[in-house]
């Protein structure tokens, strides 16, 4: 009993000491060396973990390039990545952005993939004046948050149009059912854009059903869809649920093609869906078998580093990091005095603020950048306009089907 009474205050004291030690690190430059810190946040774990892991992989290859070409330094300062896991949750994405900005004093953020999570972090970056480049969030609202938010990919209005055109013109379908994730900005937006385009092309949406990410059972929705006998089902969701939905659909005797968007882009899609996913089509940012020299060079590099093929999410993250590095390199050569503000020694100073403003302008001025996911030119709304690729899943492989231009 004596011991316990004595233990409590000691434990409390220890906690205070640890907390204070933690505070001491804040605002400082970590190791004390002057460096450029870049933040990466994404779903390293959770329901769609391959999104975050691919993003991290792509950014790391870009950093490896920088190490090879310039010793990992820009303007004499070493570049360091800080990676935060948001577990696939919007609220954690906001926390990760706060931490990266306030604690790690990053000069820019790379992420997220899922639009809902980009939308949670974007206002924080905008308010702090830190540029954020989302490699692969396609919902239009993401870059509308403010002038600090950029993206490297096409938008959902175009993506919805792509699949609608593909369904109506290439596949000749008339009646399509939609099964969307009601809690995802991406899914709801894409479903709407698809509906608009498809009905504009003379098609009909026969039924719209919904689910929530994390659901295990989709039989009720698919039975309801089956009763309307559509020509195809459009599922603008993320790969985990899509794989399960495909299995349940086949189990219920639904044999029509399944259509989707870039949220399907993961190796895991085929692992979960297995045979059920064969014969499905989805719109994507690239196809691995496209004969593009930049793309093929990146594939070789990625393969030698990770011994696996990257997905489009990784490719877009690579491009996002390269655009960021290129903007910083330009600043370092043209305006070294302003560039110095990006160093961690200047965190929280007016010089940092000026440097961030300049960095924003330089990223916004990106034109005809030869990326692995196509040529990148950012428009006045900080979006990249790119063609979309339609991929067909055939015998457990992703095969290039066609390219649709804006």
């Amino acid at each position, binding site marked *: 009993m004596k011991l316990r009474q004595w233990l409590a205050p000691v434990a409390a004291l220890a906690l205070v000491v640890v907390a204070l030690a933690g505070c001491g690190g804040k605002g400082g430059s970590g190791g004390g060396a002057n460096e450029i810190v870049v933040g990466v946040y994404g779903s390293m*774990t959770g329901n769609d*973990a391959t999104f975050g892991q691919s993003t991290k992989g792509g950014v790391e290859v870009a950093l490896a390039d920088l190490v090879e070409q310039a010793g990992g330094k820009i303007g004499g300062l070493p570049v360091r990545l800080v990676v935060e896991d948001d577990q696939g949750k919007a609220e954690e994405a906001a926390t990760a952005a706060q931490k990266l900005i306030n604690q790690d004093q990053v000069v820019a953020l790379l992420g997220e993939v899922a639009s809902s999570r980009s939308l949670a972090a974007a206002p924080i970056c905008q308010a702090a004046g830190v540029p954020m480049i989302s490699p692969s969030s396609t919902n239009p609202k993401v870059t509308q948050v403010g002038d600090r938010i950029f993206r490297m990919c096409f938008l959902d209005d175009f993506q919805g149009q792509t699949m609608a055109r593909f369904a109506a013109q290439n596949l000749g379908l008339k009646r399509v059912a939609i099964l969307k994730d009601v809690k995802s900005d991406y899914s709801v937006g894409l479903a709407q854009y698809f509906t608009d385009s498809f009905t504009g092309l003379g098609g009909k949406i026969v039924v719209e059903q919904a689910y*929530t990410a994390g659901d295990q*059972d989709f039989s*009720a929705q698919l*039975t309801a869809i089956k*009763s309307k006998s559509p020509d195809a089902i459009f599922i603008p969701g993320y790969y985990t649920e899509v794989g399960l939905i495909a299995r*349940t659909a*086949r*189990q219920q005797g639904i044999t029509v093609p399944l259509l989707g968007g870039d949220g399907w882009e993961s190796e895991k899609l085929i692992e979960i869906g297995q045979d059920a996913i064969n014969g499905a089509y989805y719109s994507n940012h690239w196809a691995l078998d496209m004969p593009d020299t930049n793309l093929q060079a990146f594939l070789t590099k990625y393969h030698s580093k990770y011994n696996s093929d990257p997905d489009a999410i990784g490719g877009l993250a690579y491009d996002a990091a390269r655009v960021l590095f290129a903007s910083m390199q330009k600043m370092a050569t043209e305006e070294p005095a302003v560039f110095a503000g990006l160093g961690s020694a200047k965190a929280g100073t007016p010089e940092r603020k000026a440097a961030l403003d300049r960095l924003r302008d330089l990223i916004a001025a990106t034109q005809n950048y030869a990326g692995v996911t196509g040529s990148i030119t950012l428009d006045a709304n900080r979006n990249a306009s790119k063609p979309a690729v339609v991929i067909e899943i055939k015998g457990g492989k992703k095969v290039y089907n066609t390219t649709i231009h804006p």
Partner: protein
Amino acid sequence: MSTFLQQLVNGVTWGSVYALIALGYTMVYGILRLINFAHGDIYMLGAFMGLYASRWFHAAENPSPVKALLVLLTSMLLSALIGMLIERLAYKPVRKSPRLSALITAIGVSLLLENGGVLVFGADPKFFPQLIPQKTIALLPGVTVSNQQLIVLVVSIVLMFALRMFVLHTRTGKAMQAVSHNHMAASLMGISVDRIITITFMIGSALAAAAGVLVALQSPKIEPYMGIMPGLKAFVAAVLGGIGNIPGAVVGGLVMGIAEVMVTGYLSPTYRDAIAFVLLIVILLVRPAGIFGKAVTEKV
């Protein structure tokens, strides 16, 4: 009409999973008056044990029903052992404490299993191997059932009957009933209460593990947090049927499954999770003891 029947089939298969999980809740509650909040996490562990067992038996490479059965039994056995460990290490020390301490311990164990699961298995979803290739069987024109759904249903029914026979017709089962009535009196009759409680936890955990493997069989995505929602809903199912009552848990589970599927199919999937708790509120207002429960006056 065929759509309605198909939805009914969907509801019954999904409900039988809830029923299996609800059985464990109800048994433990019947004997200890403890709501074992970690039960949903045992369901999760069961699915993971199944995953490791199927790797161990190489069940995915050339699937056969025998291997699938082996996987199921191994998972049930391992989970029963985990259930026993949890009971010995976490619940037994607080058995004499107020009931609230035990409840809080249960929540603690639940969090430990979930986050321990993240640590050991990783937080990203794992994919359960295809132990039995999927086939579709037509029941009526427009009404189909897959062989996997049938397996879920059949295994659930077999396990529920086995449990009923065990409780009603074996010495240990009768001892369980005695303990559920009164610990003190049962121990005076020479029943080892500790042993019975341990067995109860083992059986409950094995049933939850079976549910985990069965769900993973047809919906092959498993992750450490997968037990939270089914756990809560199975708890509602147990309350619905009358907590502590074994046939009640089965009926409660089926009612829950059918209600969920019907709401999703005919109203809106956004109400799917809501319906469980609406049912809970309704039953607590209308018939607090549950469908099969008997109102018992509190002993003073």
